[in-house]
């Protein structure tokens, strides 16, 4: 009896300390993430009059959203961006990670170079790219000009702008994923490679039979976060493509459309409805990925 009470007291103490330790993070999450998310969902059922004032309009914003071709075009743009950018990011990150996992001279220099885009501020990066891609004065068109290629309107041709944004997106995402994958690669025991070598497996065979299956847990994480990141693409579009143009119409993502309605047109209610749609899509896709992981991830 006496003995049991002491254990109980110990348990209670432990629980309190547990809660105490998660408190700072939990408060931060609630104040900065969860509360605003709930507010946004609430706001999507309202028409805002500015300065936080609003009137309840029920499903009006969602009805308008269903009938708005701009929303569907933006969804299409977002899907196009994700379908092209995600595989490129994952494949390139993996290739770079494998190359950076070799024992070669100046390895840390290369790793730093590849990681640099992650450290640089996205807005600054986009500004530089914007100048490189400028059709009149940009370095890229100047270089292409040397080969007799006519100037390309990288950022203002409605059929091209989205691919330009994808190039920048892929370029800036590789570094971060590379670091994650290198960590995953270094967890693979060297013995496997030694035995494979003795059995006569070449580097390509080794990659597909040892490296790839064993790095899948990290790869899974990379794929999930890259997909979410791709669906939320905003800053490169915002910084590089001119607003209110046809090129923007064919490039803008749902996240950008949310920004346009919430912060340019001051229609926060409708903007919220757009971002709730985006949230729903990301939730569904992430849920599917979690289900599918059993088929290809080896723990």
């Amino acid at each position: 009896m006496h003995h049991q009470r002491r254990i109980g007291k110990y348990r209670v103490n432990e629980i309190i300390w547990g809660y105490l330790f998660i408190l700072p993070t939990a408060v931060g999450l609630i104040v900065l993430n969860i509360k605003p998310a709930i507010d946004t969902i609430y706001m999507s059922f309202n028409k805002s009059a500015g300065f936080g004032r609003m009137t309840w309009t029920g499903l009006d914003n969602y009805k308008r959203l269903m009938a708005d071709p701009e929303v569907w075009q933006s969804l299409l743009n977002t899907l196009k961006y994700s379908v092209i950018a995600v595989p490129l990011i994952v494949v390139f990150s993996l290739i770079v990670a494998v190359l950076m996992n070799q024992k070669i001279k100046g390895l840390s220099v290369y790793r730093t170079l590849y990681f640099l885009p992650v450290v640089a501020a996205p807005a600054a990066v986009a500004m530089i790219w914007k100048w490189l891609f400028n059709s009149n004065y940009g370095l890229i068109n100047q270089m292409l000009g040397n080969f007799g290629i006519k100037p390309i309107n990288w950022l203002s041709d409605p059929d091209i702008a989205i691919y330009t944004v994808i190039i920048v997106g892929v370029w800036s995402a590789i570094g971060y994923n590379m670091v994650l994958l290198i960590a995953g690669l270094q967890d693979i025991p060297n013995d496997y490679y030694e035995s494979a070598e003795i059995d006569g497996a070449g580097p390509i065979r080794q990659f597909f039979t040892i490296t790839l299956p064993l790095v899948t847990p990290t790869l899974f994480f990379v794929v999930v976060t890259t997909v979410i990141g791709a669906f939320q693409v905003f800053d490169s579009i915002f910084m590089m493509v001119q607003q209110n143009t046809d090129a923007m119409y064919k490039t803008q993502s749902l996240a950008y459309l949310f920004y346009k309605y919430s912060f340019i047109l001051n229609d926060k209610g409708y903007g919220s409805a757009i971002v709730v749609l985006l949230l729903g899509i990301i939730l569904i896709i992430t849920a599917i990925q979690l289900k599918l992981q059993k088929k290809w991830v080896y723990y």
Partner: protein
Amino acid sequence: MKRNGLLGITVMLAAAVLVGCGSGNSAGSSSSGKVTLSFASWDTKQAVGLRKMADKFEKDNPNIKIKMETTPWDQYWTKMEAATTGGKMPDVVTMHSNESYKYMSNDMLMSLEDMAKKGDIKFSNYNSGVTKLYMYKGKHYAVPKDVTNIGLWYNKTLFDQAGVKYPDGTWTWETFAENAKKLTNAAKGVYGFAAATAPETGYYNFIYQNDGQIWSMNEKKSHYNDKNTVGALQFYQDLMLKDKVSPSAQVLEQTDQINLFESGKVAMIMAGNWGAEELASNEYTAKNADVAPLPKGKKQATVTNGLAWGISAKTTHPKEAQKFLKFLASKEANTMQSDLGVSIPAYEGLGQGWTDKYKKTFAHIESFNEQLKYGVLRPFNANTIKCETLSNEQVGKMMSGKQTAQETADTVAKGIDKILAGKE
């Protein structure tokens, strides 16, 4: 006992976090009895002159300090709305007609009727058009700061090379298009004009010159598909697609017309008098550029607009803010604004100082003062930004040849009617 201690720590931690979030709310009065007023504006070039005006005020009122908060235009309104929603609107703010309606109709600006009654501000001193922009339900909410209009800036060197006479007040649309053709040398990448998809510094001017309408302030209906408006849009589209005197829409989307003008790629642009400071500080344009009145269509017209200064309705220092606004509204401050080259004051009859300041660089800078007599106010209503965004999107499509002027006008007119009806 021990457990209580733990709970105590928990509560304290939570309290600390919450307090941390709520702090920083204290207003700008320091213990010495000095009051600090925040003064928000966006133009960094103008801020230099505005600071000198604030210095003068501080000298006369040693108990009040003016803290200038200069935020670039692109973030100014986002920041202003967030600050206002959070109850931290700057004490004295610069207003623009795009946004003023929202602030006036939501009671975020202090009514200036009391100050007018006391004789601190005499609204009849200012340009009547700009004064009207900052009135809501018959009450004044801001003091007109300046009055702007659009002129035809041209590159003298490119004109000389093409053997074309410099533009003057006598030019018509026909002379304009004809000479623009002569100035264009596509092989060299030089164009006569930049037909940018810009409302105030572009197609609005042609619409007004053609006696067309955009939308009216009081009606719940737009007149965007008026046949004169369509005619003006057609002329504007032809400049680019038929006469080919302008860089393509796709080029203009990427490079601002001012940049093209500054690098000698276009011979003429439409830009406001507020551009004088930038064009004078650029070595190339200071040497090569001058300005003329806009060409004449059915009549002469230029888009006018004006900024204004207002006081936050929730300022913690209403007396001091009013004192500062009284100074900003005064003849003394506006003479400074003019002489320092900040802009042409809305205070009538004080524009000479501004003209004199730039006269040495641009011989015909007085065009801006002359044009004021036939200036037409930029369209303004409760949803200016929504209407203008829609207009720009559609005109952009028209300029890249995706739709006709008539289709553009019809789409915009229908859209604006929907916006004005509160459906979008």
